[in-house]
């Protein structure tokens, strides 16, 4: 039954800065929520026309399809370095690199650290779902101890493969970054916090403040073998114990 909206006002719709493309993400995957938040931020700051999305390799390879902005699809792991090249070539562009755990914290380790260390005036969004989604569910550097993945079928054994890496904490040791925060999207309150954080991270670039990193704890219902709702609970109850939420650096 459709309720009449004649006496109502629309209070929520798709951000203008997003295209109409249908999402290719799995049901319940937080990439979709994050994409909406970035779109909303581009709307609010009116920067879609000068934004350049640096799309990685991974489930979010298609990031170049979601925004009414220029975009560059780049080699695996290299988004922070490509973002550097773009920003140095034209500092007026608002450059955001959108990367998963493999892209940012494994193959891209050197590029991620050094763009932060140089204090490049860019915005980096790091999606941490503790697994490699696109390639079928392998271990990520962020995979939890005892977590089962296709390359840790009996659970991650720290004696063999070490511990989940807290990359934002590592980057927080550097002198240059101005804003480093870890957020999540598992309930409305966390979504609203994340919206504020991502807006700060983009504002910093607009105001020429320096390097901002937003790590977003996200679900991967498909490779965690959990329902979307159970996945949200897993982040709330388990993942945040290993990856605490909050601001690590705020030097604006």
């Amino acid at each position, binding site marked *: 039954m459709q309720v009449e909206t004649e006496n109502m006002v629309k209070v929520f719709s798709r951000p203008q800065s997003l295209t109409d493309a249908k999402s290719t993400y799995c049901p319940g995957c937080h990439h979709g929520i994050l994409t909406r938040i970035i779109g909303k931020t581009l709307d609010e700051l009116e920067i879609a026309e000068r934004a350049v999305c640096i799309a990685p390799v991974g489930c979010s390879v298609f990031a170049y399809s979601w925004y009414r902005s220029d*975009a560059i*699809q*780049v080699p695996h792991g*290299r988004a922070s*370095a490509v973002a*550097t090249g*773009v920003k*140095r070539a034209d500092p007026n*562009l608002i450059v955001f690199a959108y990367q998963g755990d493999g892209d940012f914290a494994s193959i891209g380790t050197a590029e991620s650290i050094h763009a932060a260390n140089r204090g490049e005036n860019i915005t980096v969004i790091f999606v941490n779902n503790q697994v490699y989604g696109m390639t079928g569910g392998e271990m990520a550097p962020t995979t939890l101890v005892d977590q089962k993945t296709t390359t840790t079928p009996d659970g991650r054994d720290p004696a063999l493969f070490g511990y989940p890496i807290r990359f934002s904490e590592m980057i927080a040791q550097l002198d240059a970054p101005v804003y480093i925060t870890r957020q999540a999207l598992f309930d409305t309150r966390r979504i609203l916090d994340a919206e504020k954080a991502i807006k700060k991270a983009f504002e910093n670039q607009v105001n020429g403040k320096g390097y901002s990193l937003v790590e977003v704890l996200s679900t991967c219902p498909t490779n965690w073998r959990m329902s979307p709702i159970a996945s949200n609970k897993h982040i709330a109850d388990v993942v945040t114990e290993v990856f605490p939420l909050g601001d690590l650096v705020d030097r604006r």
Partner: protein
Amino acid sequence: MGKRVLLRGNEVIAEAAIRAGCQCYFAYPITPQAELLEHMARNMPRLGRTFVQAESEIGAISMVYGAASVGVRTMTSSSSPGISLKQEGISYLAGSNLPAVIVNVVRGGPGLGDIAPSQCDYFQATKGGGHGDYHMIVLSPSTVPEAAELTMLAFELADNYRTPVMILADGLLGQMMEPVELPEPIDPGTIPAKPWATTGAVGRDPNIVLSFDLDPEVLKKMNLDLQEKYRRIEAEEIRYEETLTEDADLVIAAHGTMARIAKTVVRKAREDGIKVGLFRPITVWPFPYEALRKLSERVPTVLTVEMSAGQMWEDVRLAVAERAKTPFYGEMGGVVPTPRDILSEVRKHAG
């Protein structure tokens, strides 16, 4: 006639890049091209342009990829092992139709090799190195003044064809000093417009820089377009030089600094009554197969001389086939053949 200055090959390539309008330079230090990096570090910032010493050669080629997407003239330089690291980035540049200039000051290999000159990266440069069906235009200068000229040309070709271009130098050229009249800086107004670049989607649909499509039919079309571009480059941009080949009984085929040494051999051989000529490819991709084929129809021997185990030699044999004898003389490991060494090979085969 401009001022002539005495400069090292590495510095001349750097200065020519600046005069060609290179806006962003990204690189990682490696011997024997340090002077190129240093020249850029000293000069780019004071010109209001970008110099970044990247975290690695991979970082550098990735930064080039970014700057190239924005449509600015951009360059990186390295030497053999560093160029190996750049291969994925080069494949992406080619697949995404982006212009960029990559300088390889080749040293002895494989592996860490040494820091002495070599020509052992010919295969890497001309036959791939990176994955996929692609090519770079590859220019091989044989003198310091030619290095300046070909650097200017590299930026022009890169922009005209939206393709990565390599300057295939070597440690000998990089380090040698010669008097050179530096080219005039270009008029920035002559740089072609780049409506495809990611300059910000103001008043137009978004531009996407991409080398990917999950649909094989679409990727096939992307590849066919690339191949069509390479056919155009092959038709228009082959460059080579023939020296005293008209009456030659033996022609030396050589590129880069080896060709320069071979010119001395040609002179000495002729003084001794042996009619020797030189066939010097300047573009080693696209390779001048047709011109060499024609030459081999009247010359009985084409002696390839390289600082390698015989890489350009394969292209020479492809061009010449059975039409002439195709012996080879080479040195590896950074050993530079002397004119005397080459002359004795010439005598052996001129018979």
